[in-house]
């Protein structure tokens, strides 16, 4: 009985309505958190003792990098769930993750590169963290390429699910690259046990940005997944009804 909500969620019309109702609940907090985080990070947080004003790029770079990995994991989980329990909505969610993830990966790479020039002295270094992040971008592109190459949606779903799951081996590599290879990239400041290596005045805006970016991702994902569900169900009766309602 407890699984009924799960199956209900898997029904396209139900998901379509629910996603539509939930989107503003993610979008508005995301906007507020990002505005607050940007103000806190760019205006009220003090400059860093070593990096001066330049460190403020962390307020965009770290959330984007976090999302690039998080979205890939989410995509792999959606793909696996969709594959195992044959839930179409999960495939639609996975498909809508890819483009967003690729964009955030690109943002993380570009901002990181702009940050690296003044701090390390180079735009790009073939360092494990940077290289594995670049590989992540290629994985997203490969996923999107595979999807677009297969015309039959059901087959595209299953084939790209295999790729998403195989590619997930890269996620722990990205995360632990800094620890394993003693890389040029600094260790994580926020996500660790015990005390964070940042004072509250810097940390709180960063956490706001992290949460804001994540909620923003969920909102965009829901919007895109709704579009994807509509596309897949375009012949169905409920779509016609929903169109009449709207």
């Amino acid at each position, binding site marked *: 009985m407890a699984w009924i909500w799960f199956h209900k969620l898997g029904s396209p019309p139900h998901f379509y309505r629910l996603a539509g109702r939930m989107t503003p609940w993610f979008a508005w907090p995301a906007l507020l958190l990002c505005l607050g985080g940007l103000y806190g990070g760019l205006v009220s947080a*003090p*400059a*860093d*003792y*070593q*990096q001066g004003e330049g*460190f403020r790029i*962390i307020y965009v770079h770290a959330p984007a990098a976090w999302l690039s990995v998080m979205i890939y994991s989410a995509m792999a989980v959606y793909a696996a769930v969709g594959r195992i329990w044959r839930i179409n909505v999960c495939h639609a969610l996975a498909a809508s993750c890819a483009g967003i993830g690729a964009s955030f990966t690109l943002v993380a790479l570009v901002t990181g590169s702009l940050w690296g020039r*003044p*701090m*390390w*002295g*180079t735009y790009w*270094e073939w*360092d*494990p963290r940077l290289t594995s992040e670049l590989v992540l971008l290629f994985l997203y592109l490969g996923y999107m390429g595979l999807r677009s190459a297969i015309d039959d949606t059901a087959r595209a779903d299953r084939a790209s699910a295999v790729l998403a799951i195989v590619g997930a081996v890269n996620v722990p590599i990205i*995360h*632990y690259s*800094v*620890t*394993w*290879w*003693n*890389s*040029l990239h*600094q*260790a*994580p*400041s926020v*996500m*660790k*046990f*015990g005390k964070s*290596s*940042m*004072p509250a*005045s*810097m940390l709180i805006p960063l956490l706001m940005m992290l949460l804001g970016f994540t909620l923003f991702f969920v909102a965009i994902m829901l919007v895109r997944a709704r579009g994807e569900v509509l596309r897949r169900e375009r012949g169905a009766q409920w779509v016609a009804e929903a169109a009449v309602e709207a």
Partner: protein
Amino acid sequence: MTPRQRRMTLVAVIVVGVSIASALALRAFRDNVMFYFDPTKVAAGEVKRGQRFRLGGMVVQGSLTRTPGTLNVSFAVTDFKNSVPVKYDQVLPDLFREGAGMVAYGRLDASGTFVADEVLAKHDEKYMPPELARSLKAGQAAAAGGAGGAPAAAGAAAAATPSTGGTQ
């Protein structure tokens, strides 16, 4: 084979394969496939003369000397066991500090000096406002009885070593 037997075989194969792979990977990490060499490895002669490699470590406090009128600088890099003298003739990155981490590309010359053709500054994961850093440093210096930059170097060293607690 019954489906059940087949499934058990599959699980056994996966378990064996994954454990062999992890054993090999662990063995590899003991042989350290590092991104760069530290001064102790250089002192132990693990690098050949003339071979281009990456040297990583901390810049020794007070070791940075500039030749007036040129960009030439020299400094020593240490891992708190051994140190290696380094020469460089280009602009140092902004974050390059005595007592902070750095990575350099280059070769050893005949006298054992590392001639760098690229120097990168490695910064740590600590962020704090400048006033806080100054007062921390002052407090530490007072506690250490005016030992100068030593406390700062020790603090930075802790940050430069791969942080074992730094994972989620």
